[in-house]
């Protein structure tokens, strides 16, 4: 183990430079959120992930945000175990009818101010599962959504761009509002 740890000290760092936040997402956020909410949340956000019925593809890519290449914690973004500790709910999947109540209860357990980010094409409108007897639809059909990050699944880089848009300072957010 010592050899491995020592090598980590001398090997070049894997972590990549920060991608620019997605401007379209910044604009969506600026219209969705008041400046005061942004100031109150600050630049450090606690994220609670909720799988509302996804195929697990989005979860795999959300996991990847923690690896050495993306290292999401360097931006002050971290995943927490309880909605009671969270500022952001990261919701994946078409919301299944069997998960609807669990999603509502998790949302209600999260203290305000809070943001909801819908991750993946299914979370936007149910994706390829829309129209099923077992699916309610996108996340917005159950809880208010502040930001959509599309993709099937979105790559870690796309996810990072969206999440960085969240922690852009309020001035940037209001500047890009229409």
């Amino acid at each position, binding site marked *: *183990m010592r050899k*491995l*740890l020592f090598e980590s000290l001398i090997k070049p760092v894997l972590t990549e430079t920060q991608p620019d936040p997605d401007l379209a997402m910044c604009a969506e956020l600026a219209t969705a959120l008041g400046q005061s909410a942004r100031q109150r949340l600050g630049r450090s956000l606690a994220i609670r992930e909720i799988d509302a019925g996804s195929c697990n593809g989005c979860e795999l890519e959300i996991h990847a945000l923690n690896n*050495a290449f993306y290292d999401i914690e360097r931006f002050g973004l971290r995943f927490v175990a309880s909605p009671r500790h969270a500022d952001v709910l990261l919701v994946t999947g078409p919301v299944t*009818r069997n998960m609807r109540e669990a999603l509502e209860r998790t949302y209600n357990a999260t203290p305000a101010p809070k943001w909801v980010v819908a991750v993946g094409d299914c979370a936007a409108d149910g994706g*390829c*599962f829309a129209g099923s007897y*077992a699916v309610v639809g996108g996340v917005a059909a159950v809880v208010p959504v502040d930001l959509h990050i599309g993709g099937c699944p979105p790559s870690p880089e796309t996810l990072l761009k969206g999440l960085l848009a969240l922690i852009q300072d309020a001035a940037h957010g209001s500047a890009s509002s229409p």
Partner: protein
Amino acid sequence: MPSLIEALAGAAPSNGHYPWPRRVVDERTWSVLVGQLGEGRWTLAGLWGDAGAVHMALLDTGRGELAVATLACPDGRFPSIARHHAPAHRLERTISELFGLEPVGDPDDRRWLDHGRWGVRHPLGACSEADGEGASYAFLAAEGEGLHQIAVGPVHAGTIEPGHFRFTANGETVVRLEERLGYAHKGVESLMAGASLERAAHLAARTSGDSTVAYSIAYSRAVEAALGIEVPERAHWLRALMAEFERIANHLGDFGAVCNDAAFALMHAHTAVLRERVLRLSKSCFGHRLMMDKIMPGGVAVDLDGSGAEDIRSLLATIRETFPQLIDLYDETASLQDRTVGTGTLTHALAHQYGCGGYIGRASGRSFDTRRDFAYPPYDSLRFDVPLFQDGDVNARVWVRIREVEQSLGLIDQILSGMPPGEISVAPRPTGKISEGVSLVEGFRGDILCWLRLDSGGAVARCHLRDPSWFQWPLLEAVIEGNIVADFPLCNKSFNCSYSGHDL
């Protein structure tokens, strides 16, 4: 002793069923087969409903035979299989709630995937409206002084899929665990009915996102069997290349994640880097990090070019250089082994009874791998071992995964050097008649069964996808008994069953 197909004395259906036979049997033959299942003669590979009938896929693993038995249920009932063969339990409950066919004598009449929230009952059978308010669920009891319950899920502390676990514990020791699944039920089979081949391929690829390649192969092979399509040789090899990529990526990720659940984050950090490299290479070679929608009926969507092959060889070299250090790290860290050795032991008898596939079965001495025992191209011309361990604990499951990564590296070598040139796909054409196909494919988690019926226009009339987790989830309940609550994450992660693939 009669072979499986001899035991299935019955009429062949009027339409074709390929490549393995299907027989419509009477109730007496059905009962004999179920009795033999209970005695361990056959392995249950699937049990699913249809309009007015139930189908049961059986394996004779010794002879490498698969056959499907069908029992017509004109009065909406069929004799319970679970009564004689416990692995059929949840499958039977699912048939009952999706199709409204009643398993007579089933010891458990609680609903499984249907939580009473769909607003309909029997969505694939005689569909009727229901209130959708949600039904209560009676968990099985455990009684005694000092017992307490711990309810976990469906929203978990980690970034994982939704499911509910109800523990009954005596102090730290788990007395009983009962799972409640179905939260991720999306009605995939109802969406499949009437779908075009392309749309159904899209759905099959999203049945369980971590196994998207394996599901796409299973679905495509079933379609190709039904339509009698000969896939170009090169397409088989490209499929196998993607499948081994998927296996390595998942094994690497889970190897680290198991260690992480014992608070050994160092391993997780290193395996996550390797996993990311595999995903990035998948993206550069095939155009998608998880290789979704790159395999479809008739072949594959993307070819591998020369520079892609070079990049793959280079990554293989990187993994071969790094991975042994990580194996040593695992093997030499006593505090980590203290958590994995002897934890969550699955007996050989249970693994065998449940026909438990993948690394879970192989860690408990069940030597079964579809790539070898029901070989499909190109695996029938490749050399590889099926790693086998006997201890059945978390440690054994980790070791199977480690050894399988090594085998997959060797397979990729052979695929790169042996891949024939030529076309990569042919267009599937409808045959103008109803046809049926079945396939069995080895995903990273175990064997995936796909059965489907195509209508005369070439659209999907009925498609059933059976995830390996159906025969693994129940065993997780068994292995946790007598372990401490804190070891559940280790047991769960070392199983890594699919929620979405199971819930469909």
